[in-house]
Every structure is written in structure tokens, then in C-alpha cells.
């Protein structure tokens, strides 16, 4: 099946891209990897007049780490680069793991995390981990940039907070405090090349006593129109002491806050039953990492 014809531009610099995007943004789509975009075009769900190819813009590529700022991942960075990056593996191993579970190897070498996030599918692989990390998005605006916590980015099913003329420029993952860790849990029917029936990013931070939960983020995917945090549960869990009661409250809480539907991949009932299992397993993974970190220190 073929979509409608479209124009194609490949700007040579970020400046050129920004002026082209300012001028033609309304009927244009940004082509980063195309792994979602071309599916939509071929299925005739999208008919952009122009594709602006940013896949080779050097200003939008790269991963860096600064002890104060944390991890910065530019929007044009390929998912496979994130998966393999030593910096990501060190400072955000759960993100490297999520990246490794996105699509196939071929897809990961084409796709970008920015595309995965801007596509705003509730089943997407990377948003739960980014939410767990408390990631900040750097958004390019006409003539400047602004930042936005990722928790305010997903407005509705496949709808984001990007305004006309804006584009996603970079991800900033703040440095993890002491006694904290992030985990990623996912469930699909098979073990690779899946759109998850459920996924979850889990952030856990312990107080200096090592047993009191000082902060927690539980970001759920595939249980609602967007990936979102179980904020009520997070509030209730803060200040609790680790233990069976805490784990049970976490599992029950996310199940309560999940609003899944029946679809091709799983039923709402199944999702409700298993989301709590993911929370529990994710928290156990975090505890194991925190324990390891302490052992080394």
C-alpha cells in the first residue's frame, strides 16, 4: 500500500532545520528514523505534505554526562546507541534495558527515543523509564527553547504538549541521588519484538536509615490512554518502611490507579491483575541495586 506523495527536505544544519520547520512546520513531519512514521503514512493514517529529515544532524546527536546536570541525550540519537552507550548503562541502566527491548535490532538502528516519545503510544517502551527518572524534556521553540517535565508531556492518546513550531530537542535525566535506583518491568506475549501488554518504570529512593521510603515514582504503560504515574499510590507509599506491607500497598495501589481497556494484546482484567506484580518485581529490583551500590561504596 502506498500513501500520498510528499516532499522531502534534508537540512544540513540545526539552524537550517529550525528555519525550515518554522516556515513549513504546519504541514510537515519530522523524519528521525521513520519506523513509526512510515507505517502511519503507508496505512494512510497520516498524509504529511513534507518530511524534514533530521537523521544526520550532528547537533541533535549524542549522549553526554555531567555530574551536576546528569545525562543528556540529544533527540536524534538512535535507540541502538542508547542501548549500547556506556554512559547510559552506568547512569540509567534501566533505560538501556528498555531501549534494548524496543522493536528489532534493525528498528533500533533506525528509530530514535524522541520518535518513541513523540509518537505518544501508551504502550511505548521508553516513556515509563523516563518518567521514573523524572526526566526533563528540552523543547525547541521558534527562536529558543523551553524545558518541560516529561510527566506533563503526554496529554492524551497520541497527543503531546508540543505546540505548533515546537520540536523535541533533548532529554535530561538528573543524576540519581544516593540510595536510589530505577527499574523497568515489561510483559509481552513473547520475549522480543513486542508491543507490551504492560510495562512499568519504577523509581525508589530510601532515606539515610536505609529502610524508609523517601521518594518513589511508579510510571505505568498500557493501562490507560497515556503512560502515567500512579501519583496517589506514590503519595501513600512515601514515608513507609520497607517490608511486606509496603510491597502489598504498592501492588494494590497501582492496580487501583490503572485504567486499562481490553484490546488485542490483553484484557483489562489481566492487566489489572498483573500490574501489581510488575510494581513488586520492579521495587525488588531497585532494592537489589541499591543494596549493590551500598556494598560497593
Amino acid at each position, binding site marked *: *500500500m*502506498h500513501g500520498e506523495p510528499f516532499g522531502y527536505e534534508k537540512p544540513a544544519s540545526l539552524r537550517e532545520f529550525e528555519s525550515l520547520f518554522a516556515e513549513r512546520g504546519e504541514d510537515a513531519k519530522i523524519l528521525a528514523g521513520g519506523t513509526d512514521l512510515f507505517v502511519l503514512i503507508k496505512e494512510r493514517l497520516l498524509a504529511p505534505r513534507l518530511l524534514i529529515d533530521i537523521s544526520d544532524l550532528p547537533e541533535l546527536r549524542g549522549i553526554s554526562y555531567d555530574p551536576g546536570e546528569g545525562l543528556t541525550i540529544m533527540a536524534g540519537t538512535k535507540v541502538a546507541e542508547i542501548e549500547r552507550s556506556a554512559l547510559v548503562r552506568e547512569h540509567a541502566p534501566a533505560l538501556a534495558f528498555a531501549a534494548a527491548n524496543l522493536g528489532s535490532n534493525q528498528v533500533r538502528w533506525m528509530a530514535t527515543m524522541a520518535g518513541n516519545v513523540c509518537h505518544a503510544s501508551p504502550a511505548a517502551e521508553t516513556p515509563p523509564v523516563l518518567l521514573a527518572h523524572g526526566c526533563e524534556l528540552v523543547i525547541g521553540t521558534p527562536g529558543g527553547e523551553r524545558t518541560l517535565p516529561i510527566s506533563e508531556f503526554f496529554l492524551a492518546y497520541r497527543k503531546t504538549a508540543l505546540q505548533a513550531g515546537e520540536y523535541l530537542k533533548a532529554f535530561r535525566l538528573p543524576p540519581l541521588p544516593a540510595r536510589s535506583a530505577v527499574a523497568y518491568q515489561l*510483559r509481552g*506475549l*513473547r*520475549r*522480543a*519484538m*513486542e*508491543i507490551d501488554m504492560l510495562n512499568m518504570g519504577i523509581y525508589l529512593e530510601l532515606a539515610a536509615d536505609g529502610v524508609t521510603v523517601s521518594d518513589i515514582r511508579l510510571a505505568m504503560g498500557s493501562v490507560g490512554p497515556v503512560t502515567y504515574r500512579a501519583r496517589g499510590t506514590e503519595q501513600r507509599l512515601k514515608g513507609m518502611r520497607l517490608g511486606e506491607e509496603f510491597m502489598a500497598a504498592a501492588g494494590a495501589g497501582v492496580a487501583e490507579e490503572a485504567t486499562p481497556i481490553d484490546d*488485542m494484546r*490483553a*484484557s483489562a482484567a*489481566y492487566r489489572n*491483575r*498483573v500490574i501489581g*506484580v510488575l510494581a513488586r518485581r520492579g521495587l525488588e529490583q531497585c532494592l537489589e541495586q541499591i543494596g549493590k551500590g551500598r556494598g560497593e561504596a
Partner: protein
Amino acid sequence: MNQRKFSIIGTDKVRKEAPAKARGEAIYTDDIKLPRMLIGKIKHSDCAHARIISIDTSEAEKLPGVKAVLVGSEAPNKYGIVPQAPTETALAIGKVRFHGEPVAAVAAVDEATADRALDLIKIEYELLPVYIDPHAAMAKDAVPLHEDNKYGNIAYMAKQDFGDVDKALAESHRVLEKTFKTSYVNHVFMEPHSCVARFDDNGDLMMWSSTQVPHYLHTMASQVLDMPMSKIQVTVPTVGGGFGGKGEASNNELVAALLSRKSLRPVKVTYSRKEVFFQHRGRHPIEMKIRMGVDREGYLTAIDYDGIMDGGAYGAWGIIILFYTAAMLHLPYKITNVRFNAKRIYTNKPTCGPMRGLGGVQPRFALESMMDDLAIMLGMSPYELKLKNAIDGKHDTVSGVHVRHSEYKKCLTEVVNRSGYLEKHQKLPFGRGVGLAGGYYISGTAYTLYMSYKPHSSALIRLDTESGVTLQCGATDIGQGSNMVLAMMCAEKLGLPYESVHVISGDTKNAPFDLGSFASRVTVAAGAAVCEAADKLLAQLLPVAAVHIGCRADQLLAGNGEIYSKFEKELRMPFWDAVEKYIDAFGPLTATGSYTPPRRTGEFKGGNVGHSPTYGFTAHVAEVEVDTETGEVKVVGYNEAGDCGQPINPLSVEGQVEGSIVMAMGQALYEEIRLAPDGRIINPNLHDYKVPTMRDIPHIKTYAVDSYDPDSPFGAKEAGEGPIQPTIPAILNAVYDAIGVRFTELPLTPEKVLQALEEKKRQEGLS
């Protein structure tokens, strides 16, 4: 045994075409580009059951670049693989019977133009009730899909009754009754169907096609195009798998030929993956109600089978598969009371058909599950019960099927020993279990699909000093490696290197007749034809060599590129010198061979279906881990022991067995074509239709038991369809062992497992 000392047979030869395939250089049908070639595209119905009120192609015809537009009424001849009851036409006429049915077609200068032309074809439908469930289709007031069908939407019915089932069940120590349901699954071969058709100035039609059965495509193209077969040639480029799905003419092939005739230009029609799901011909979902009896010692007393097969919209291989399902009940266990009662139903979905191990996979799932249950009821190991009932080296079934050679018992014992089944069964911790199951399959059929007495396979070998060895045989290599197998047999016979044999195959003009690649028939049937041709060649060549060497011809052998006396080492000459002398004296050196399966004498029952020259056997042990919190089933270990006779190429046998297991594992755990109530396929793509990935596949250990069928070419039997039979019940028996729940519906999703575990917990709480 002297006959089992081979120099080429039994070695791990690498296929000649493998490197080119790995590099992406092999030429598949879709790679063919001819001068002036057009792209053909098909317009599919967007409703599942409707009368066609009108088709307006005028706008499409006006579009620049469109060279032909075709509708069903232009090719009204019906066709079908079973010629007595054809049900299909190249494009729908008067009615559509499933969502996605081909209704019209265009040929245009490029794909984009063809796509636009399809959008311009306007079809008006009058909607009819849609039946995606066979029970709904069988209701008294249901609208028949095929108005000329005798029994409403019941396409075919069959009853068979052997022994006295009622008496045997009444006298049984234990009788188990269960209902099983299998799912709607597709083959998922890598290469979608593709065909290029071209007419030459003489009016002759050439078809390049991705088919398993050039011969049957040849006959059906002749029917549909109303042309003598002699004016049609079918040739098969590299094929990317078939598994039965390319086992009859498909619409794209006939449409390509019709569009080419209309446009007077070559036309290619290649399916998208979605269209492969429309063409389908995958496994029939069957609802099987089965009663099975057993005596005190664990001997099976009777099988009473009641089945409803969901056939989809058309006849296709349906009636054959219905009878195969019946035949499959009789082996690999000794059973003398068997009743079979089944129907195949027309429903508004893509047509079901032949799929790897056809007829066997569904009943095997049910029977091997029930045998486990019966064994456990008797406090016996399933291994003991299965071994007790397994057939011996030779066997005659009550249905009249003769098994000339079986090592099934060895398969059971080997796989049990190699997997540690007895040490693990009922002894692993909750959530982990092992399951045993056995199975078998035919090695070719004894009868053709149409009445005929001609040989099923034939081969022609030519030896000459310029071209070397040329082996021509109509057998079709669809990726299973038949070219390699036949070349290895020819090379072994002539005592020449495997690499020196050039095979010309899969062509109705350039190679002598063969029925096609289905029913695991090629190794035995085409193999026998090749062996006969090679023996005849030697019978001509050896006397010439004997004169030169100076000894008796019957003391000469061919080997290592020489012809030599089996008694005196020094009496020898190079093979090719002998060929040259023969040709100098007598002219061209060629020989043909053919194979006709043995016909059964005496009384046989069951529409001749199920009879085969010989049978392959196999037994599996699966080990699974069930995540009791999420319901996921992970296959963590897999053992197989198989009797495929003498493996011609052990590496290829291993590939066939592993491929079978992975395919069936997908059907056990993941795969299912899902339909909306209106008959639309929800997941016609490989993103949402889920086959196992490398991460899901366990380490599979295969083992070929010592076996040699003395009546087969080089002792060989099938290896490509038997091994798919036991996988589903092996996995489900393992799940039973792991969590104590018997599942009877496929696929076994985490959702079903979790539900069953909760139900089990609830019931245990009650008791």
C-alpha cells in the same frame, strides 16, 4: 548391513544455494523484472459476506498507466485442488464470502498507479449475515455461502466406524471424555506469494511462481484460462517456504496470467503480508469431542471422535484434510475400535487448507493430552502407557493402513532417557514440569488427488563429457532442500562428488513429471525415481567399462569417481573415461526412472486417504516453567527423538525437526488470527500475529534413532511433518505437570493460565 555404508548419504552437506540466500543474492519470483512488465494489484472485498450488485471499473480504466482491469466474470471457470468439487474462481463472481476476497484486479505501469486504480474501482454490495463461528453457520436458517452446496454450510461430512466402539467403551476400565479446540493459525512462510506471467508471440504462457506444486498450478491455470496444458509452462524460482500454504493455485497466480493475457504484457502480482493472510490456507480450527477408553493394564480400548472443522469460505484441500484427520486416529498406537464423525463447515473467513502435518496436529494434541490424563488416572507413567500401546516394527491398522517399518518405541525410550523424563515427571517443584508426546506422519501419499495411474515422480539423468551430470526432476525445492537430497542420492549412486550433480527441478517443461512438494513425499518418491534412473545409467555404462577393464560388468562398482572391480583393486578406470567411451560408441547417455507408490490390496477404508509407502515417527519431551503470578509459560528445555529412517543429510533433518518444533510452539503459546465480528482480520501483520522469536526458543536437542527402511531409497523416510505433531501436547502435558491444570484450548496465553490458576485456587479453597 553393507547397504548402510555410504560416502555421501548421512553426511552434513551444506546446501549449494545457502550462501546466496544468506547474502541476499538468491533470485526469488519477486526479483524477476521483465521488459515491459506491469505490476498487477488486487482489489479485495471490504465485507465478509455479500452479494455483489455492481462493479464499476470505468474510472480505473481511464487512469493513465493502467493497461488492464479484470473482473471475475471474465474468468468464470471454477477450479480447486480436488477437481471433482471445484469451488473457487480467480476473482469473486456474484458474491463475496470473506473480508479480503479478491474481487477485481488491475495491471499498471507501476505500483502507485495500480494502487490508485484500485481506489477508483467502485463496488456495490448487498450485505448478508456474517458467520465466523461454524455453529452459527450451521444454524437452520443460516444463509448458505455456496448456494449450490447440498447441505447448507456443511461443506463435507464423513463417518467411519471400525470395530465396536460402544461395546469397547462400555467394557473399559476407565473412559475419559473431553472437548478440545484448536486455533486459527497461518503458516507464516517468509516469502509472500508471487507470480510473473508472460505470453509469447506463439500464444504460449510462461509462469514463474512461488509454488510448492507447479503441476497443480499447471492444471488449474489450464482450467481457468481455458488453454491446453501444453501451451503453459510453470517454473519455480527460489522459494522462501511453503508449509502447505503454496500447495494449490493461489489467486495471484491466476490473476497474473489473466492480466497478462488481457494487457499483452508481462505481469507480476506479489502479495503483501496482509494478502498472504487473505489467501491463508492455514490450519483448520477444530472443535473435537473425544471419548477414549482404557483397560486396567493401560491398553487403549477405543477412540470415539466427533469433530467440527472450521473450513473458511472455500473448499480447497478441505475434504482431503477431513479424511486425513480420520486417518490420523489410527497411529502410532495399536487401537482396534475407532469411530470418526466429522463435518467441515463453510464460514466467512479466509479459507483453511493444508498446513505442515495436515490432519494430524489437532487430533494429536487431543489424544496425547488424554493419554496423559488416563495414565495419571491409572497411577501409571504416561511413558509406560504410551510405550505399551505403541505399534511394533510392522503394523496393520484396523482401517487397512499398512506400516512397513516403525521404530516408534525406540523414539519414546530414547527421548525419555535423554530428557530425564522419569526422574522429573511429577517430581519438579510447583510451576515447573515435563511433558511427553509422540506422533507420526506419512512419507507421501499412495494415491493422487485426481484419478490417475501415472507415476507420482519421475527423473531423468544425463551424463555427458561436456555438462557432467544433469539431474532433471519435477520435484520442487521450496526451501526444504529437496534439490540437495536428490543430488546426494544421485551422487552416491554414481560414486561422484555431490557438488558435481546439477539439478534442474520445479519446472513443468524442463523437468519430467512430479506431483509436487507436499505430504512429505519428495525424499521417498522422487528419491526412488532418481535411484532408478541412476541404476539404469550404471546398467548401460558398466558393460562398456567392463570391456575396457576386462572383467564382468556385474563385478563393477562406481565410487570415488572411478569404476572398479569389487574383487581386484587394480581393475579400475576413471568414471568419466567410461562415459566418454560409451558416448563414442553409442551416443547420448541418459536414463529415466519413476516411482509409483505400492497400491493396497484387499479391503481398505477411508477414501484411500492415509495410505503411504512408509511412515516417520517421533517423540518429544518438553520442559516448561510457568510464572504463577503472570501466567507466562516458558519452554525451557526440549528433547526430540525421531525415526526418519536413514537421515540423508543429518544437518537438514535437524533443521526440519527444530523448525517443526518452533512452528508448533508458536501455535501452542502465541499464534492466532483474530477476527472482528464483521469478519475483518484484526492482526494481518507480523507485528500483531506473533510467531516465536529467537528469545522464545529453548535449546532443542534432536536425535535420530537408529533406523533404516529397507524398502525406501537409502532407507529414508519423512522428517518434515512428523516432528510437528507432538509439540503442542508435549508442552501442554508439561504445563499440566507444572501446575496441575489441563488446558484444552489453543493458544495457551498467560491470560488463560492465570485465570485457570485462580480458579484452581478457588476450588481448592472450597474443598
